[in-house]
């Protein structure tokens, strides 16, 4: 009876003790779930999980790890008590790769194998398809074996940990995405103010490198039609592999990468023969790049961004490709805008410069590249028209200067218009004289014919102007025109601050002398010009005349025209 009471008391004590243990473990579970919620870092969560498990089950030691389940590579590992163990070390357990099969099949490893490594309770962790791991405990300090209920409790604790790590990872991904979006916004704000493609490529490269945390990177812009690298920016690359235009990476870009239209992400070994992608991967690998994102500014203007390994050691993912492509596209638009601005500026300069010599219509054609201009620096056969007002000093004396300026401006404007209409360019005004050139800036089929037609048109227009000036100012003028054809030097001449497109040569002087020979209303041409005129132009030969600066006499021909249009 007494024995029975004792037995009953022992049983009750045992039950109470077991109950207390269970309560303690449940309390551990509750505490852990509360505490885990406060951590924002996966490592801290795992550490807390391990501490709670060791303390909750009274284990002598324990470990927890997370691994890349596909690669079988341990990413994070925390352990307590294993380093002091003289037996097989934890590293041996993990490096034995046994846990890999554990992920693949979901079945626990052989208990004997586990115990040989000092692990007596093991529970898998699954954060995602790729990230898996386990929490393991060594023997209890009391030596008591683990029960099924212990396994169940550890499982519940582990699932709390998994869920918390998952949330933290989601939060990190979200923060990363926000950072990426902010990067996109920042880049769009920054490049707006950049006008040079080099500055844009640099900002783009820096942004991309900072976004993905890489030490090395390169950005390139090239005209693939001309086979010319326009901009090559790099950071953290070996100098020898990037040794400037046309060499190293520049050559590789023009030969191989310029034709790549899709992003390339290198993973693992690259086929040394360059099979599969025309050698693009091999080119990237040869300069230590792991990713390549091409972009297109125009049909011929292409570029790309190359990135080295990430500092984090993570491979480039599909998400990265999307962000990189968006960043590259943003850079391409910025370069497009900068190029457009550059073109507009160039066109404006051309417009201002050419409008001094040519008609607005021709200027527009030149600016739009509908007409090719010869900006020279070479020799060419052209026709010069030299027009001069007869007795200018006499007819203008005693005239108010303001009135004179007005008359001359009207005269020059009308005459310049006629010259432009005949595809001539205005070389300069010398006092009251007009020097026009035909066949220089804009090619014409027969510059002599154009020049003579312009001269006759000027003569026909003058009476109308005279009628206007006579009515208004009691003023009229006569002009004489000389036309000569021959080889001149043409080009932009002057100092860098003031360049002028002009013609130089004896041909200009002779045209000037013929203008001097011409009586009011006469258009005199040289033998060289006359030879280029067709039979439809009526010519009257004058006696040969001496002109200053020429030995011997020159043949003189007068253009016969009626006052009405031909």
């Amino acid at each position: 009876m007494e024995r029975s009471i004792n037995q009953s008391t022992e049983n009750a004590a045992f039950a109470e003790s077991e109950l207390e243990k269970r309560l303690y473990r449940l309390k551990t579970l509750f505490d852990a779930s509360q505490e885990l919620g406060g951590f924002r870092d996966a490592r801290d969560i795992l550490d807390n999980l391990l501490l709670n498990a060791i303390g909750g089950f009274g284990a002598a030691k324990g470990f927890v790890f997370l691994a890349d389940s596909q690669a079988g590579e341990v990413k994070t590992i925390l352990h307590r008590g294993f380093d002091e163990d003289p037996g097989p070390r934890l590293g041996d357990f993990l490096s034995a790769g046994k846990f890999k099969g554990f992920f693949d099949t979901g079945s626990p490893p052989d208990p004997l194998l586990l115990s040989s490594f000092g692990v007596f309770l093991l529970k898998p962790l699954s954060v995602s398809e790729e990230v898996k791991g386990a929490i393991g405990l060594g023997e209890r300090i009391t030596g008591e074996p683990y029960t099924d209920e212990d396994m169940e409790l550890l499982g519940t604790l582990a699932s709390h940990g998994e869920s918390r790590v998952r949330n933290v990872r989601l939060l990190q991904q979200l923060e990363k995405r926000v950072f990426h979006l902010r990067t996109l916004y920042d880049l769009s704000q920054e490049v707006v103010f950049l006008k040079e493609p080099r500055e844009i490529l640099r900002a783009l490269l820096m942004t991309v490198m900072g976004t993905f945390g890489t030490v090395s990177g390169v950005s390139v812009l090239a005209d693939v039609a001309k086979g010319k690298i326009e901009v090559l920016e790099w950071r953290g690359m070996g100098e020898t592999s990037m040794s400037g235009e046309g060499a190293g990476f520049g050559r590789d870009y023009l030969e191989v990468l310029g034709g790549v239209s899709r992003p390339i992400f290198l993973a693992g070994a690259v086929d040394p023969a360059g099979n599969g992608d025309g050698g693009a991967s091999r080119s990237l690998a040869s300069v230590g790049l792991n990713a390549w994102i091409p972009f297109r500014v125009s049909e011929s203007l292409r570029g790309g961004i190359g990135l080295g390994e990430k500092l984090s050691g993570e491979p480039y993912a599909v998400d990265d490709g999307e962000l990189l492509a968006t960043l590259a596209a943003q850079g391409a638009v910025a370069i497009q805008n900068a190029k457009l601005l550059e073109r507009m500026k160039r066109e404006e300069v051309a417009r201002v410069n050419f409008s001094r010599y040519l008609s607005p219509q021709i200027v527009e054609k030149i600016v739009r590249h509908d007409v090719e201009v010869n900006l020279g620096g070479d020799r060419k056969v052209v026709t010069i028209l030299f027009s001069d007002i007869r007795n200018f000093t006499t007819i203008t004396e005693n005239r108010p200067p303001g009135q004179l300026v007005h008359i001359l401006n009207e005269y020059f404007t009308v005459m310049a218009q006629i010259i432009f209409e005949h595809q001539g360019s205005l070389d300069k005004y010398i006092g009251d004289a007009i020097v026009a050139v035909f066949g220089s800036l804009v090619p014409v089929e027969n510059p002599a014919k154009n020049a003579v037609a312009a001269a006759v048109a000027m003569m026909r227009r003058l009476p109308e102007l005279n009628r206007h000036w006579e009515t208004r100012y009691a003023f009229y003028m006569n002009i004489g025109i000389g036309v000569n054809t021959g080889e001149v030097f043409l080009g932009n001449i002057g100092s860098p601050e003031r360049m002028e497109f002009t013609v130089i040569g004896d041909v200009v002087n002779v045209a000037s002398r013929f203008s001097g020979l011409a009586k009011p209303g006469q258009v005199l041409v040289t033998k060289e010009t006359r030879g280029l005129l067709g039979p439809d132009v009526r010519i009257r030969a004058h006696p040969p005349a001496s002109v200053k600066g020429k030995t011997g006499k020159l043949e003189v021909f007068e253009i016969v025209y009626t006052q009405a249009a031909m």
Partner: protein
Amino acid sequence: MNKELQLEITTKGEVAVGSIKGDLTAVNGGSIEEAYRGMTREGVRKILFLFSKECYINSGGIAILIGIASASRKNGQAIRIAGLSDHFRKIFHMMGLTKYVAIFPTEEEALKDF
């Protein structure tokens, strides 16, 4: 992202402390790179970049810091970063910059680590 970058270099013992205020971006971060090059020329071996809490650092700015951290390894210099907000500490961690350079919450903690 419009605050001008201000950099002031002082020395604390053997450590050159670059105090940074404003926005660190690729466009305006050249002054930090220039300051680093200057310190290197002068033979400085220990550098602390001390950010004010309200500093804004974008990707371009991070690329500048990665470049400096990378160069410092080659030049045998010790670099520490302190004062960052929690947000940027996390970003630096995500970008892997913490593999190259140690980051501390405060100037005092960073100075102690040299």
